[in-house]
């Protein structure tokens, strides 16, 4: 029996959601068809859209369903960027002889700068780097602090650079870091951006359903979500696109939704809505329960394995709590996802830890599943100031709604042996062999 502690990579679908999904899959009908079966599918789809919207305090029309979180992020980032380049050019003139609906020539496009923190998810990093390589975007990296939170002072400095905010296409940022679980200063950054008319895309995939996100700050233009991180199906996500914000689409043809073409997956949407409802029905209680388990895990690790470093805001909270500084611990905990604990083991490789724990029956991760298997230190940890060697021994434990105290205790029992073996393997690998 596997103890699954990798919910941040994908959370299994609870039986209740499976039931809703199965029932929805048995419906016939393309929501775009005007006949009764089509309209039934349309009703199911729009109901789902409303329920997802309600969890964020937005209108149904603001929810654009996508084929997953990565597509949502790509649409948010590229779509906003292109829209900013296509829109009124501000102080730069569009070539007067251009066709009415043609985008301005590459060199004449306004607002090329994208501001992006160094600790973003790969969906954002790769989308922005592609825009920089192919579409004339100018990337300005933003620094993060030691727990992985965006440094607002650097964001402010970046806004002022060059021609100033008028040259900025967008700020894109996480709501919570997917590896270390640190919540980001979205409200503060959005207020700052709004003051300068800069749209903000928020990747809330790791945060949605874990912590309440409503009401969305006024300066946020778009928010990316994914269903399978909260027990919904894989292949379903959404971009919440606020009124007044527009994107140039990524997928064209049919115009089924604002900014997105393609037959709509009504069954997937219904299952997403069910998962979203379930996550939000008792979000505070669920978060408190997970936080309690996470604290138990953190305290156990600090007691048994003093060499291990707990990272991110949750790590700071655990250290403060162990030292009896309760107020400080609570303040840090308020800045952390409830169910994520990230740690580094000096001298060990995260992959060895993961494999040893896997053999012992625990599914965990070295960080983001999307880069797992690639033996590179995490860019998140490097951005937080860790040295490459320290960053190599990374492990992420992420709890789900059904994780129990017994699961946590079992991991605590298995961890010392895995840490010891991974550390000695790491040591052996780094010790030069003499006399060869």
């Amino acid at each position, binding site marked *: 029996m596997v103890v*699954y502690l990798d919910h941040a990579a994908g959370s*299994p679908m609870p039986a209740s959601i499976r039931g809703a999904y199965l029932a929805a899959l*048995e419906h*016939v*009908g393309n929501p775009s068809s005007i006949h009764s079966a089509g309209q039934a599918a349309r009703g199911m789809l729009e109901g789902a859209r409303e329920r997802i919207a309600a969890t964020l305090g937005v209108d149904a029309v603001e929810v654009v369903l996508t084929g997953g979180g*990565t597509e949502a992020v790509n649409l948010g980032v590229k779509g906003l960027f292109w829209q900013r380049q296509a829109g009124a050019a501000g102080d730069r003139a569009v070539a007067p002889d251009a066709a009415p609906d043609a985008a301005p020539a590459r060199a004449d496009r306004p607002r090329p700068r994208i501001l992006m923190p160094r600790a973003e998810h*790969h969906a954002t990093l790769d989308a922005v780097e592609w825009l920089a390589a192919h579409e004339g975007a100018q990337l300005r990296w933003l620094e993060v602090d030691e727990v992985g939170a965006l440094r607002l002072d650097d964001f402010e400095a970046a806004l002022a650079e060059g021609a100033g905010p008028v040259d900025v296409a967008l700020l894109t940022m996480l709501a919570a870091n997917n590896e270390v679980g640190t919540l980001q200063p979205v409200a503060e950054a959005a207020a700052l951006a709004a003051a300068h008319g800069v749209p903000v895309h928020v990747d809330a995939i790791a945060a949605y359903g874990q912590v309440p996100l409503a009401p969305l700050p006024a300066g946020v233009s778009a928010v990316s979500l994914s269903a399978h991180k909260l027990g919904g199906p894989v292949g379903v996500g959404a971009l919440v696109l606020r009124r007044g914000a527009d994107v140039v689409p990524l997928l064209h043809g049919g115009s*089924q939704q604002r900014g997105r073409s393609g037959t709509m997956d009504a069954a997937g949407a219904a299952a997403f809505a069910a998962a979203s409802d379930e996550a939000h029905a008792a979000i505070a209680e669920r978060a408190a329960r997970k936080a309690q388990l996470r604290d138990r895990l953190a305290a156990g690790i600090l007691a048994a394995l003093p060499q291990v470093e707990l990272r991110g805001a949750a790590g700071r909270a655990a250290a403060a709590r162990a030292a009896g500084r309760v107020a400080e611990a609570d303040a840090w905990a308020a800045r952390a996802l409830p169910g994520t604990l990230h740690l580094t083991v000096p001298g060990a490789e995260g992959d060895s830890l993961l494999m040893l724990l896997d053999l012992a029956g625990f*599914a965990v991760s070295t960080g983001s599943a999307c880069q797992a298997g690639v033996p590179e230190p995490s860019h998140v940890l490097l951005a937080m100031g860790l040295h490459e060697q320290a960053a190599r021994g990374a492990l992420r434990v992420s709890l789900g709604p059904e994780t129990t105290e017994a699961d946590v205790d079992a991991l605590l029992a298995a961890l010392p042996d895995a840490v010891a073996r991974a550390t000695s393997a790491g040591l052996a690998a780094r010790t030069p062999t003499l006399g060869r």
Partner: protein
Amino acid sequence: MTIIDLDQAATASVRRTVLEAMWPHLTGDYGNPSSTHALGRRAADALEDARSRIARLLGVRAAQIVFTSGGTEADNLGVIGLTLAALTAGRDRHVVVGAVEHEAVLASADHLARWHGVEVSRLGVDELGRYSVGELQALLRPGTALVAVQHANNEVGTLQPVDSLVRAARAVGARVHVDAVQTAGWMPVVPPLTGAGPGAAGSTAAGAGAAGAAGSGAAGSGAAGTADVPGAGAASRPDAVAISGHKLGAPKGIGALVLPTGAPVEPLIHGGGQERERRSGTENVAGAVGLAVALELAQQEREDLVAIAARRDRFVADVLARVPGAALTGHPSERLPAHASFVVPGIGGEPLLIALDDRGVIASSGSACAAGRDDPSPVLLAMGYPADVARTALRFSWGASTTQDELASAVELLARSAAALRV
């Protein structure tokens, strides 16, 4: 009231066998294929197994299948992705798209025009909805980057001479995208995706071997052709073929782009590098398994194709006999085997559909994607129909399991609905 579903070109219901095959991946095997732990590896194995099964059915190598979120994404990736890669390789900013393509292809071409300064030529059709090779050749330029054509039209069912169209396009070095969303499952993609002929959908290794033996160069070894075009040795093979799951009895939200020649595509969605860097995002394992099973079922049922086409011809003859003024649109014989489309001058398409719906028959006026709009069908306009006639389009499309009796009832109910509306 039992519903007779004659709108399966819009979407088919999810088949029970497909759901049952997907079920384990929605329950116990929920791992993320990119995770390295045991659950993740099991998910990755299931994904690759589904990929191999689809590849085997289509006669390509597993690595040539890119899973997408559906047909629209597959068409976008084919049209935009192939074109951008071709531009990078030095081809000219010129593409040719068929005038009666699905909106996913047409709108992708518009995007290329708007954002990449690409000139788009439209390839017209005759009164049966067919493209002509001669006309394509007249539009092609030595540097044309891409030609995008459909295997069959979604509204009027006409099969296109894809084989000759592909050859003509490849002759000038253009990449070729084929939208096979309507034909996948019903018939092999023509031209065959391997060099070994339509019957040779053997194992991947055998397929590649046969292609090599035939001297046409297996995918990936096409360096024998011009250096400019990857896989150029495959003179008759398209570079990309789009298919969609939900037209086949798999759920919505899964499709695939097949890349038979290994031509490079510029990705649309970045981040994570899944699908060999061609399409990022957590892989939909259950959907991929569903697509594989749906294609396998369709392949088994394909053996009855002659009988299915005979049922279609009977349906067409009955409609023409029973509904005064009705005329078949599209090609009378070179058409999808379970698809019949008409115009009924004098009776609005939409009122007729509503009357049919009330009597338990689901049909459509054309593309579901354009449903709810009052515009005349652009496909019929391109075929030369006047606008008022193009507003009376009716499309019936069904599945392999649709019975003769259901079709006969539908004709009867259609005749009654039409008669009621004429009064």
